[in-house]
């Protein structure tokens, strides 16, 4: 956990007061909606179908139990008692009144939470591997760098009015859980031959209407140079990114139109102007941030404690353990994922009661720390393995022990037509229906890892392009239809999925997905050949045939 100091606290409080003033000028009519809109967006406030939506930043997905309790408090006090965790590691509240927003922000500020730049054409919340700092084999904890980036990009005077939104993601593992290749800038922490820490920098990834996989622009930028280098990338983008057409305004289009080599040359030129200047980091600066990440006092514990052995007889516990418990960098500890995807539930939703209860469990079993993953699940990052049975029993009572993490019913879905004013179709009911159909743990285990991603429109908030199976809502003659893609992935081997054929009506989506899954089961070479790998080997044809032969 990063501990705020007086500087961080001052900035967050001053931001709340600035927003309070902006809201009051809007309510008095001094600001027009046109003038207010970019300001409220920069504070996470959208105007949606039914009400204002409020998006709160969870930088690199790390929360303390006190912070999670405060989110529960906001859900209860100003909203309808629940929140929605998103693919940006944020949380959204869907039913909040404009007049309450400054108070909600002030409450959150007490625990060092803000909504700065969770929307708008600025640098957004920096996301990171949700296992950062605890996953075995990392170069180092990428959150130290994510925090440096968070600070640098927060209220950045030059980059608060970019052509379009701008998203960073960062990982320090070879296995990419942060989806860095679908971000405007993706950073991978690496160590060079001299043992120096630095970054492989990728640019130009993104989804939406024209999806792109990011490309490597520089294979090594030393840690001390990362801010000046990123500043150069952003400066080139600010100057040359298209502003004539919002669909072409993202950096991915600039990179695509110029070509990566030409774009890289522009960046080098811009970098030459500022490299070795005031943005250069030195060891004291980095150390200061690092020193404020507080790590648990791990004990020396057995990897196979008696408690675990005793619980092994319980099949439900074992199923959960096999699914939700991952190895930790310290022996005797584990990383535990809490599924926010119960059968029939809206993916990513948590009630205020659940949030409070998870905060209590984090205090009891995870040194007070919680993570939010981009798959819309929560994580307890430091659980002693001997506590796993007790934790499981508690989670089971809360409905947070569904053993489906990474399986077919662990669906990512945007809010779609139920909340979103841009939607063409519903997402949540499709996810609910699919999660019911695939509720049987035996079938899910047979199918293995399979990611379904659903977006209610082309904006791709549900990352449908990179779902192993992607479902995209489109509208035809006033009816909801869905395009299905297969073979996408968001990890280190990121790829965009391929369309299997004409869009299908709402009522047929679940059947079609079942057909695709059955086709996979009959076509796979071995039980451990993943769905995506089978698609890669076979192409879309056999799946297409199966789906459309009978329709």
């Amino acid at each position, binding site marked *: 956990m990063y501990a705020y100091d007086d500087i961080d606290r001052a900035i967050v409080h001053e931001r709340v007061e600035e927003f309070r003033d902006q809201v009051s000028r809007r309510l008095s009519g001094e600001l027009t909606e046109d003038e207010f809109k970019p300001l409220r967006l920069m504070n996470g406030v959208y105007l949606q179908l039914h009400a204002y939506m409020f998006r709160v930043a969870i930088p690199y997905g790390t929360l303390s139990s006190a912070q999670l309790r405060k989110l529960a408090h906001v859900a209860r006090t100003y909203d309808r008692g629940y929140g929605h965790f998103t693919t940006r590691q944020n949380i959204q509240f869907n039913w909040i009144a404009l007049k309450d927003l400054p108070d909600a922000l002030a409450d959150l500020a007490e625990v060092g939470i803000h909504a700065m730049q969770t929307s708008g054409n600025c640098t957004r919340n920096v996301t990171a591997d949700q296992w950062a700092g605890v996953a075995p084999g990392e170069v180092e904890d990428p959150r130290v760098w994510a925090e440096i980036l968070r600070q640098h990009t927060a209220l950045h005077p030059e980059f608060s009015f970019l052509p379009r939104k701008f998203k960073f993601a960062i990982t320090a593992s070879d296995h990419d859980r942060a989806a860095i290749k679908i971000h405007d800038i993706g950073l991978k922490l690496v160590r060079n031959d001299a043992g120096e820490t630095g970054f492989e920098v990728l640019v130009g990834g993104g989804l939406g209407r024209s999806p792109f996989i990011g490309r490597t622009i520089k294979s090594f930028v030393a840690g001390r140079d990362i801010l000046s280098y990123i500043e150069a990338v952003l400066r080139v983008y600010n*100057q040359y990114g298209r502003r004539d057409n919002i669909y072409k305004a993202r950096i991915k289009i600039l990179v695509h139109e110029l070509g990566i080599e030409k774009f890289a040359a522009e960046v080098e030129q811009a970098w030459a102007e500022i490299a070795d200047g005031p943005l250069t980091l030195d060891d004291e600066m980095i150390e200061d941030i690092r020193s404020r990440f507080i790590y648990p006092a791990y004990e020396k514990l057995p990897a196979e404690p008696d408690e675990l052995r005793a619980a092994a007889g319980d099949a439900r516990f074992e199923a959960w353990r096999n699914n939700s418990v991952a190895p930790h960098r310290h022996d005797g500890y584990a990383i535990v994922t809490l599924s926010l995807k119960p059968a029939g539930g809206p993916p990513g939703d948590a009630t205020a009661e659940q949030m409070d209860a998870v905060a209590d469990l984090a205090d009891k079993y995870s040194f007070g720390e919680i993570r939010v993953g981009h798959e819309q699940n929560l994580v307890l990052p430091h659980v002693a393995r001997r506590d796993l049975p007790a934790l499981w029993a508690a989670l089971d009572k809360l409905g947070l022990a569904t053993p489906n993490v990474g399986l077919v019913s662990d669906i990512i879905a945007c809010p779609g037509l139920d909340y979103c004013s841009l939607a063409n179709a519903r997402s949540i009911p499709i996810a609910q229906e699919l999660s019911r159909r695939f509720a049987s743990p035996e079938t899910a285990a047979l199918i293995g890892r399979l990611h379904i991603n659903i977006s209610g429109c082309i904006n791709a908030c549900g990352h449908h392009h990179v779902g192993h199976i992607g479902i995209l809502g489109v509208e035809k003659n006033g009816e909801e239809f869905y395009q299905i893609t297969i073979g996408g992935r968001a990890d280190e081997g990121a790829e965009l999925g391929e369309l299997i054929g004409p869009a299908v009506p709402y009522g047929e989506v679940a059947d079609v997905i079942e057909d695709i899954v059955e086709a996979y089961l009959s076509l796979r070479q071995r039980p451990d050949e993943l769905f995506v790998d089978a698609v890669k080997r076979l192409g879309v044809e056999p799946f297409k045939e199966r789906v459309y032969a009978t329709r």
Partner: protein
Amino acid sequence: MPLVKNGQITADEFVAVADDVELPAEGAVLISAARLLADPERLVARNSPLGVIWPNNRDVAELKPWLDRLALIALVFPTYKDGRAHSQARRLREVYGYRGELRATGQVLRDQFTFLVRNGFDALDVKKETDAHAFGEATHRYTEFYQPTGDGHRSALQLRRQRHLTSAT
């Protein structure tokens, strides 16, 4: 539109002159980039302050040879959501060392004042009268900043580094 210069509402000494109008023999004038670039040597040699309106889609590096002889560069915010002039300002101030007046024109509103000042603007052609009067309040809201810019404020990282070193001795 009221002009706020170095924090005060001031009268504008510069007269904007259209491209097809003869320049007055003396007095501070503000001309277009096209006019400046058509005959820069003669124009900067003129014996009165010269200012140029620089479009936001043109590289400010082109101005390098004339910077020490320009009294004013006016950068343009066609809408305040178009932030290109923010980058132009920082390059002029911090990379090329421009020391004359740097003026923000166009859709210049209260909620960008802090950003503008931090980026090196010292004069703002403010859109609304009420905003101009709120300049002091608007630019003193923040006491701390995360990023270093050329505005003289020490950034959070720099401040903490200082503390870190002091506490170590």
